[in-house]
């Protein structure tokens, strides 16, 4: 029985580690948002200031999906 508990623990911890790969997706998303904002802002600097808030909202939405992977990792580690 003890071995079985260890196996479950091990699986959960490996799963938590794997869940962290989701952060890579969030990183790509955030980089995409900011990169496109910057290339647009360099073409038309006059319009850039008005779109900063939109950029942050975009970052927040892209980041939310990375946060779900963090949440899955937390659940696997502590909530079982």
């Amino acid at each position: 029985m003890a071995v079985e508990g260890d196996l479950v623990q091990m699986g959960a911890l490996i799963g938590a580690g794997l869940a962290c790969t989701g952060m890579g997706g969030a990183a790509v998303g955030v980089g995409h948002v900011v990169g496109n904002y910057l290339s647009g802002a360099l073409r038309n600097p006059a319009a850039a200031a008005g779109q900063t808030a939109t950029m942050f909202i975009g970052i927040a939405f892209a980041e939310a999906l990375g946060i779900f992977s963090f949440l899955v990792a937390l659940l696997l580690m502590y909530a079982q």
Partner: protein
Amino acid sequence: MSAEAEAAGSGFNIHPMDQFVVKPLFGNGDILWYTPTNVTLWMGIAVLAIIALLVLGTRGRAVVPSRSQSIAETIYVFVHKMLEDIAGKEGLKYFPYIFTLFIFILVSNILGLIPGAFTTTSHIAVTAVMAMAVFTTVTLIGFYKNGIGFLGLFWISSAPLVLRPILALIEIISYFVRPISHSIRLAGNMMAGHAVIKVFAGFAGALGVFSVFPIVAIMAVYGLEMLVVCIQAYVFAILTCVYLNDALHPGGH
């Protein structure tokens, strides 16, 4: 923080998550709902700091502002402009709520960066209460202002008819996921950033004379954290404004 690391001796004795443990202020008893803990202490300090900045800072009401008055005025105007840009003139009625959220999160985050301090916003329990309050308030405002028409938020009339039920499903899911992502974004960012600083502090304790490198790294991460702390308060407030805008103008997107 490095002194703490040396006190712990060599090896990785510093546990990076220890700083997030909720402890009673007096004694080691059980934590009940009325027990004063370090969370209570740091929330109280945050509130006192805000009062000191906003009430005492602007007491002079000078035309040429003093340093503290100009900080308070800058924050006030910043939040006011953000709310007006996103939610329009109707949204300004809810300015006190947004401003309270913004400045409480900002000051709690910044206080949490003091070495040895406790970051109240790193706990999902704290941020979830704020996010659920925003979610409930915004939903109630939406139904109060628009009646049953608030459900038009989920029924996108500009999309082709075939796609509308699918889009409605996606919109409903994304609406109910809002408080989760809203709260965990703030708590996760605070927890991760502070844990990174502690991990580098652990390296500083383990490396002896070479600990100068991790200490330089801590300084760099600390600067980054200062930025993240302000951006997360901004993001929390701006998302509240976006949700409020959805409630006030559900057909607007």
